[in-house]
């Protein structure tokens, strides 16, 4: 709008910076970025979520457990992985409440991001449900599968007890 007005008025897409009074060229070229990311090799992770399970990969050769799941084992150079189910309980390690959100998250109220250590070993980062002010150090949590405002499923942490 601003741009159209200034083109009509000055013949160029110009705007005067309010604070400094310095003249600015208002870029005519807009760029929208949306990536297409391959999940071909971690498909079972999403199939698991759909069934309410948290699945991840373990190297068949050296038993190294990976979470988030990955296709290759850097320890023994093998790509022969098996999918195993993680127990969905753990202990909270840290959290923050995001008040100033990125524009792509503007449809959400301030949200709590937390890291929990699962009883099976790996840590998981996700949104934490509930009032963050009620959370105490050592809080036990459970991983559940919720639905986002955008309609898709995603894992989240829910306080226990």
């Amino acid at each position, binding site marked *: 709008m601003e741009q159209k007005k200034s083109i009509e008025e000055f013949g160029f897409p110009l705007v005067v910076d309010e604070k400094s009074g310095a003249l600015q060229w208002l870029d005519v070229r807009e760029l929208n970025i949306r990536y297409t990311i391959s999940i071909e090799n971690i498909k079972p992770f999403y199939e698991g979520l759909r069934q309410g399970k948290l699945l991840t990969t373990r190297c068949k050769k050296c038993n190294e457990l990976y979470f988030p799941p990955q296709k290759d084992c850097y320890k023994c150079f093998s790509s022969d992985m098996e999918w195993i189910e993680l127990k969905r309980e753990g202990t909270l390690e840290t959290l923050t*409440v995001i008040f100033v959100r990125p524009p792509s998250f503007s449809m959400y109220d301030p949200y709590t991001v937390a*890291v929990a250590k699962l009883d099976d070993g790996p840590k998981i980062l996700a949104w934490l449900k509930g009032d963050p002010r009620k959370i105490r150090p050592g809080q036990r949590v459970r991983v559940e599968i919720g639905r986002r405002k955008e309609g898709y499923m995603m894992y989240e942490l829910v306080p226990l007890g």
Partner: protein
Amino acid sequence: MSENVAIIGTGHSKFGTRKDVNVAELCWESIKPAFESAGVEPKDIDYFVVGTAGMWSSEAAVPALIAEYAGLEPKGSMRAEAACATGSAAIRVGYTTIKSELADLVLVLGVEKMQESPSSTVIELIGRFGSYFWEFENFGLTFPGYYAMYGTAYMIKYGATEEDFAKVAVKNHYYGAKNPYAQFQREITVETVLKSPYIAWPFKLYDCSPITDGSACVILASEEKVKELGVEEKVWILGQGTGTGTANLSKRKDFTSLPSVVHAAEIAYKIAGIDKDDPVKYLDGADVHDCFTAAEIIAYEDLNFCRRGEGMKLVREEQTYIGGRIPVNIDGGLKAKGHPIGATGVSQAIEAYKQLLQKAEPGRQADIVKGRWLAHNVGGTGHYAYVTVYGLEKR
């Protein structure tokens, strides 16, 4: 790998909101004084490197832009990037190029014009300096949010308070007020910080470094070149260590230390001949990466300026002011001087040069007795770490 490397010239633009200049003009503001103080001209430069993270500003090929604007064409160049440690990564390229005897004179420029985009776009982009797919895409972590999780863990483990964090901002604003190049040249109180709105709990607005436009430039020379030019005013790069951390924060062992920094510091101390068990004994001061207040406290501990859990005590006892145990960020730090991503590491090198040569502005000159200054520059949340030791005497 025997060549010693010195900083022989420096230039620093005013940091802040720079709607009055475009990217090339902002670069020239630091390039020109760097040439003048080094006593060399564009034609003398063998190679140049530009540290810039970009994305938020229009010009991506900044090396080509300044080859044209600063008369460096057709000399070789590259762009370096390591998130918020981009400036130090650029210094790394210059330093190693001279060390490997492929050049004698290298210009290193750090620049960022972040305010060419609205702050909402910058928040969107800067939150992606971690694991994009696993931690940003679905959980919307912002840059303050990443570090806030370290702040929270530090509070839980050691009993630090939001007031402790606030005191870091108060110190850095105190010195920023004395730095004519700083974005914020005014003092604040603990109240100012505590009353400011939450950005990512427990961080409030005044716990966070700002979005900044700025450039900084150093000219690096080999020992042979220093002799040839008869340079009197110089500081040497005594050692540099680097480290890298996991993309996912969920892969971190704990949230009160950055292993990439500990690794980088150990290497830097070893090369510079500093006892890693008592580095303070060897240093007149330091610039540490205070992108957020808690990050400065964790830096004290990762650099071994104090024991684990005692970083907040250094702050409470004002031990990192001039006259204390070790002065830290007495140029205002990222917090008050500003944090133009690519320029920050280069600006830290310039502060080392100014402090060691006793050229700092009135009220913010440290006592120079030991002749060494440390710069700690972190990219992302410990995703990249650079620790550099500068000194008056070469090793």
